[in-house]
C-alpha cells in the first residue's frame, strides 16, 4: 500500500460509515418529525455510502475479502434504519407510546 493510498483508503472507510450514520440519523429524524424531505435526504446518504463502498472496491488496494465485506455492509446499512424503526414502533405501540 502506498502512503497516499493508506490515507485515501482510511478516509474512505471513515466516510463510508459516516454516510451510513447520516442515513440512519436523518431517516430517524425525518420519520420522527414526519418530514419526508429528511427521509429523502437520508436515502441520498445511503446512496453516497454505497457509492463510497464501490469506490473502495475499485480504487483501493484492500484485499478482496475486505472489499466484499464492505459491499455487504453497505447493503446491511440499507435495511437497519427501517427495520429498527418498525421494531421500535411496534414495541412502543404495544406500550401505548408512540413517536
Amino acid at each position, binding site marked *: *500500500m*502506498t*502512503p497516499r493510498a*493508506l*490515507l485515501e*483508503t*482510511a*478516509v474512505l*472507510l*471513515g466516510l*463510508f*460509515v*459516516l454516510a*451510513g*450514520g447520516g442515513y*440512519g*440519523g436523518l*431517516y*430517524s*429524524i425525518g*420519520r*420522527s*418529525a414526519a418530514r419526508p424531505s429528511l427521509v429523502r435526504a437520508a436515502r441520498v446518504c445511503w446512496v453516497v455510502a454505497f457509492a463510497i463502498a464501490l469506490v473502495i472496491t475499485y480504487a483501493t*488496494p*484492500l*484485499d478482496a*475479502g*475486505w472489499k466484499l*465485506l*464492505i459491499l455487504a*455492509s453497505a447493503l*446491511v*446499512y440499507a435495511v*437497519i*434504519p427501517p427495520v*429498527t*424503526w418498525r421494531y*421500535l414502533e411496534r*414495541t*412502543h405501540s*404495544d*406500550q401505548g*407510546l*408512540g*413517536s
Partner: protein
Amino acid sequence: MYRSQKLSLRYYAAAVTLFGVMIVFGLLSALYYLYPSMLFNVFDFSTSKIMHIDTLVIWLLMAFFGAVYWYLPQELGHEVVGMWLAELTFWVFCAVVAVVAVVFIFVQYGPAGNFTLWFINQGRKYVEAPRWATIGVVLVMLAFAYNVVATCRKAHKMTGIMWVLVLDLIPLVGVYLDAFSYDRNMSTDLYWWWWLVHMWVESTWEVLIGCVMALVLMDVMGTSRRIVEAWLYIEVMLVLGAGILGLGHHYFWIGTPQYWLSIGGFFSALEPLPLLGMVIHAVYDAGAHRLRTTNRPAFFWITTEAFLNFIGAGIWGFMMTLPQINLFTHGTQWTVSHGHFAFYGAYVCGVMAVFYVAKQKASGVAYLDGSAWKWAYGLLNIGMVGMVMALLVAGMAQAFFGRAIGGSTLEGFTTASQNPWFVSGMYARMLFGVMFAAGYVALVYDLLTSARRVAAHAMQPEPA
C-alpha cells in the same frame, strides 16, 4: 433516600474528583509533546500517562459502582444487603487510590524486583497499581458483587436487567484477575493482557453501562421495562457475538497466528452496525418525548451518548480496524484519537447522565435545567471533538510520514514527530484540552450549585 443511595453520592463525588485528576494529568501529558524535556528526571511523561489512564479506569469504575448502588434498591424495592461492607469498601477504595497516587507521584519507580512489584508499580500497562493495591481493588469488586447478589436473594426478586448485571459480575471480577499474571514470552503475555484491556474494559464494561443506561432510560424517559430489556439482550448478544472476537484487532501485530487478521478485522468491521441501531433508538426516544423531560442535562447526555459512541467507536474505529490499514496506524496518535472518542462516547456521556439523575433526585428538584450545564455540555463536547480531530491529524501524519514513508524506523518516527502536521496537531490538542478542562470546571460548578439555583429561582415571586 436509601442508605445505599447516600453511598452512591459519595462514589459520584469521588468519581468526579478523579475525573478532574485525570484531566490535570491529561493536560500535563499533552504538554510533554510540546516541551519534551519538561520536568526531565523530575516527573517523566510515563508517570503522567500512568496517572491519566489509571484515573480514567478508576473514576469510571467508581461511577459505575455509584450508579448500581443508586438503582439497586429502587429496582428491587429493598435496601442493599451488607451496607456496612459497601461503606467500608468505599473508604478502602478511596484510601487505596490515594496511596497509589502518592506513590506514583513521589516515588514513581523502583528497581526491577519484588518490592517494586508489590509496593510501587507492578508494571502492567493500564493497571500499574502495585500488587497490594490490585488485591485491594479485587476485594472491593468482590464486596460489590456480594452486595448485588445478596440483595437480589434477600429481595426475592430478579428482573431481566438484574440477571444481566449479576452475570456480568463474573467477568467483572474474573477477568480483572488477569492483571496479576505475566509471562516471559512477550507474545503470550500480551495475548492475555489484551483480555484484561479488551474483555474487561471494553466488553464487561459495555454490558455494565448497558444495564445502567437501561435503568436510566426507564427513570428519565419513562421507557418501558420491556423495551429496555429487549435492547439490553440485543446488546449482550452483540457483545458475545462481535465484541469478544473483536478482541482479534489487538492481536494483529503481537506475534499471534495469522488467522487473527481475518477474525479481528471481520468482527471489528461489524461493530458500527449495532451502534447505528442505537442512534436510531435515541432519535426515536427523543422524538417520542418531543424533547420534553424533567431533567434536561440527563436527557441530552443520554442522546449524545448514542451519537458519539457511533462516531467514536464506529467511524473512528472503522477507519483503522482493517489489518492493511492498521499495520500503519496502530500505536500512533490515530489510535489515541479513537481511544479518546470511543471511551468518551461509550462511557463518559452515560456517566454524566447518571450524575444528573442523582443530582435531581437527591436535591428533590422537580425540573432540572439552567445555563451552567449547557456550558459544561458544550465545552466538554467541543473540547473532546477538537482533541480527537487534532489527534487524528497528528496520527495521520505519523502513519504517513513515519510508517508508510519512513518504514517504521527510528528516523521515520523522528521525522514524523517534527512534521508540521504533527506539531500543529499537538498544539491544537492542547488548546482543546484546555477547553475540555473548562467544561469540567463548569460541570463541577453546575453539579454543586444547580439544585440551589433552581430552588432560588422557584422561590422568586411572580411579577405582578
